[in-house]
């Protein structure tokens, strides 16, 4: 299990290759990469704030919950904080398992919990304004499917 919270940019492709090569006898690797989307108003910058200490704890908890629930060989989570631009990679998760179903479901679970249970906050800056991104009810509702 590898969990990284960092301000530095990272190469999601290279990370995925390293993760894949590090596995032994795993038939499936699933990954998700989150990218900064531009806005209609033109996004200048996205600032991501986090809660050092709690962030790592929360991510470890989410990842270990996933490994208890599914048969996983390994889990990777990388999440950036700080100032990002459109098209920058924000975060990635990867899961390795013997079979694809566990890898897919665990990655989906990780993303649902990472969205609303890991202490990150996004602020979007356009030329006209800067606003904190509001949480979505649908993200909160998404957690109920794992109950």
């Amino acid at each position, binding site marked *: 299990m590898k969990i990284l919270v960092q301000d530095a940019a990272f190469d999601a492709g290279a990370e995925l290759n390293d993760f894949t090569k590090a596995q032994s006898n795993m038939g499936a690797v699933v990954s998700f990469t*989150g990218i900064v989307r531009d806005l209609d108003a033109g996004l200048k910058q996205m600032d991501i*704030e986090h*809660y050092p*200490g*709690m962030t790592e*704890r*929360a991510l470890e908890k989410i990842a270990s919950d996933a490994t208890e629930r599914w048969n996983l060989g390994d889990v990777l989570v990388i*999440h950036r904080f700080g100032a990002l631009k459109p098209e920058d990679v*924000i*975060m990635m998760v990867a899961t390795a398992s013997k079979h694809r179903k566990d890898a897919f479901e665990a990655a989906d679970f990780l*993303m649902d919990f*990472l*969205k*609303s*249970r*890991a*202490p*990150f*906050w*996004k*602020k979007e800056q356009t030329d006209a304004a800067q606003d*904190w*991104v*509001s*949480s979505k009810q649908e993200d*909160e509702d998404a957690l109920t499917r794992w109950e």
Partner: protein
Amino acid sequence: MNVLYFAWVRERIGVPKEQIETSAATVMDLVEELRAREERYALAFSDISALRVAVDQDLSDFDTSLEGVREIAFFPPMTGG
């Protein structure tokens, strides 16, 4: 006790962190104490349903006891991923 604020809660209160001496029994008691202190706190804590709280870095409820607690953090719902 260390009290931390994040995102717009931090902006409204004006500091990311402060040391607060309190005898509040629960998170909600502390919120009431802060609200009574100054306008900026009253503003930040005006709608508790818009806030989340972590007690010693675990997501918690507002009725959580503060006994033995070292760190408490207030913030809006999280928007990771």
